[in-house]
């Protein structure tokens, strides 16, 4: 196979495994999938895992990483297994819960349904990168003060979605915040305290 052929084949295989057109899966688009009757669920296809490898290179929490990974490696796998950043959780691996939410180039994405390859060249922020030199981010402080969690398994995702929302919309109404977080399930249903935490974070960040 020539280089060109290989590249074409790789691209084809990537796009087969790309679950949403246009690159990384944004949670905003997926929110609708969780609300019955508003959008068709976009489920991953069932093709065999792609065993070919590629080099991915991305900045995660300010550090540049380069690795050779199977093309089928998801961003969540890359973060959790290759970089050992296990703060990003997997609740469904099917873009239906938001536990795996990370920030890619300023957008909140479901890392379980984004290929590591798709994040090549990107700036990725995970829960581990939020605190600066041990000083917690105001969102983290707000989630602590208002107990915006119970078991904590959804919390990384809730916080990363909140981060993107507040970056874009520093002063949301409660209803705007609710909508923005609708792609992040909390099975403990700590929603009231999560909402309080988000609104408190917004106040702290604007102060």
């Amino acid at each position: 196979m020539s280089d060109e052929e290989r590249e074409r084949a790789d691209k084809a295989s990537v796009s087969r495994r790309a679950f949403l057109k246009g690159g990384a899966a944004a949670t905003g688009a997926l929110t609708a999938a969780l609300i019955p009757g508003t959008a068709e669920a976009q489920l991953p296809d069932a093709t065999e895992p792609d065993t070919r490898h590629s080099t991915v290179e991305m900045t995660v929490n300010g550090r540049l990483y380069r690795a050779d990974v199977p093309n089928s490696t998801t961003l969540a796998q890359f973060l959790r297994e290759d970089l050992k950043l296990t703060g990003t959780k997997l609740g469904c691996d099917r873009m239906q819960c938001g536990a795996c939410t990370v920030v890619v180039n300023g957008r909140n994405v479901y890392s379980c349904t984004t290929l590591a390859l798709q994040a090549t060249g990107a700036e990725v922020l995970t829960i581990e990168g939020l605190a600066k030199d041990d000083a917690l981010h105001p969102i983290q402080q707000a989630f602590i003060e208002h107990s915006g969690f119970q078991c904590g398994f959804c919390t990384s995702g809730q916080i990363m979605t909140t981060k993107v929302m507040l970056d874009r919309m520093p002063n949301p109404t409660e209803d705007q915040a609710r909508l923005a977080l609708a792609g992040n399930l909390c099975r403990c249903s700590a929603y009231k305290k999560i909402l309080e935490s988000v609104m408190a974070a917004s106040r702290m960040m604007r102060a």
Partner: protein
Amino acid sequence: MAQQPTTPGGPLNVIGKRGPNIDAVERVTGRAKYTGDIDIPGMLVARVLRSPHAHARIASIDTSKAEAFRGVRAVITYKDAPKVMIWGNRQYALNNPVRFKGEAVAALAAVDAETAEKALKLIAVQYEPLPFVLDPEEALKPGAPQLFEDGNLEGMPRILNRGNIEQGLKESDKVIERMYHCPTMWSGGMEPRACVAQWEGDKLTLWASTQSPFRVHGSLAAMFGVPDGNVRIIASYVGGGFGTKSAPHTDESLAALLARKARLPVKLQYSREEEILDSNTRFETRIYVRVGVKKDMTINALELKAYINQGAYHTRLGGLGNQATHTYKTVNVRTEQYRVHTNIPNTGPTRGVGDPQEDFAVESALDEIAIEMGWDPMEFKLKNIKRNGDPIARGPAGVEDGRLITQVLDRCIELGAARIDWTRRNAAAGGQPGPKARGIGIALTERGGGGGVGGASVKVNLDGSAMVFYSSTDIGTGSRTTLAMIAAEVLSIPLSMFRTTAGDTEVAPYDGGSQGNRTLQGTGRAVQAAARDALDQILAAAGPMLDNTAPADLEMRDSVIRVKADPSKSVKLADVMQRRGRSAVGLGNTTAPQTGMNVERTTAAHFAEVEVDRETGKVRLLRYIAAHDLGRPINVTVVENQIEGGSIQGLALTQGEEMRFDKRTGGCLTGSFLDLKPPTMMDFDPRLIEAIIVPNEGVTGPYGAKGLGENPCHPGMAAVANAIYNAIGVRLREVPFSRGAVLAGLNAQRPAGSRTA
């Protein structure tokens, strides 16, 4: 015993306040390690082959190709499974025949997930399909497919009898008979089941996502025939359980078997689909109710006949609660429970065990009969509830040999009714004209506070910092925080100086685990005793530094030990500990408190206000008041969080989470979040949920706490059903309350000629 710095009833410095969880930083920074985050060098990945049949005998199983596949280190089938059941629950680690579609048939461990998944396909199994049955009542009929040699009924029917039900019904002025149905419902946590098993010689360490480490401990020690000391279970951070992780489960046995065979550590993580399919979820109930009342508004007879769909095996836990027997002063009561095996996945106790299902039946039926009699359902319930001093059963038998104490259910009702303004309720159901109608409903509930054996230890370090060790878990209920608060209160060491080690059977004493409202009471009492023990040691060591003052004449406040009679004489805790030169380790081992005749229960009154769209059938929640008696709150923020979250979980049962099974194949049709629709922040506006903590103080728990976790989930279905009836006059007796069911009910109200087909 040393004088306590603070006593229950005395001034409290830590308890009863609001405040963040002590493990909050770990939880918001991603540092908290859940089982799936554990990584051991050389660890293998396990995958499970699952049955394509609802019921089948395995005629042959050939694993040779899988075993020869490069990277595979161990393959196990039912032939490798020890003939010791998982926690004595009818199920081996692997079984032949298999009894539900999706049951584990074989498992293997390989160097990575991809290898494991490929190798799984190389296992050749020949099945002899057997007839299957999915419905619990069908399963009891003659000629039904049999799951076990001794039939489909699990044990004896559970029958409780008080008074004379037939006579009670006969002597009633009004009797109604109804059936209420709850389907099998998913109730798992956010974290799918996960475990990591590692053998060192004949010692097993298993990290597991479990609520009850010592149950898993006991199950595996028995299965492998090793002494208790050879097994260590660690469940440090658990991503929710809601009962599904309260009993030992197949995954733990499979991981341990594979790790032993491969001689390498093995991680087994269920996918979300596997977790939904095989997670001891909420059991289906069909409850036939007969209730009779007298004209003077008393409940004269209450009978429940319940068919419980246990699924293929059972967890030894579960069944109905005491809604029919413990809430009301009914003289003639009978409950009959048939726990029936069918070819659907295992079910078990889930938040509230069977209480939400039972509550739906009892609280709906009482609403129905009150309305038929023209009574206000709240007045009717208020008149009939048990109050302090009323007789109540101490044990599982129906005999009312005890008496109720510290009950404030009447206050729950009054405060809740005032908050929602019960007077706004429609005097006549469905009376509002127009396309949208509003209604208000009430449902009560009750439960035991949870006792059992508690064990914990408290260690004060040489620098004056402290630790709480306990083997039950913090599944999101905040037990790390509340247990540390109890120790901090007893010792008067600042809470910020505490660390906790949860869920480790090697470092902490035996404890009953985290389920059934028991952690705070059961483990909490042990922590209280352990902290007192440590305090005694500290005060004894301080005496010689304070003119040989007797420990009884010393007290510790804010990590300073003082002579009570002369507070100017003091010494710092850290100095005492340094001088002592060894940590103070306090032990607490407690049994259920002996209260003689007295019985303490936790109760709640929930009020739902809904708006029903008569054109679309949509039910919208407008307000939800959850008034709870939980004794004294240890941490108010934790309590609110439990009430708010639990209420939403109860409400979620009204709108979805039903697990449906294909009648032709027995396969689960609802294997994803998209099918089950657990609520997002948009489904129930969390601002509509209002928690009321009814002031009270118990006597059996630490500092008057009674426990809480289960109750908030109980009344949602009944409260909403009663509110819907009040809005539109349609009675829904099956959950979920679909738009179709609402519209069908409205349609049936119309005169025969104008109904839509």
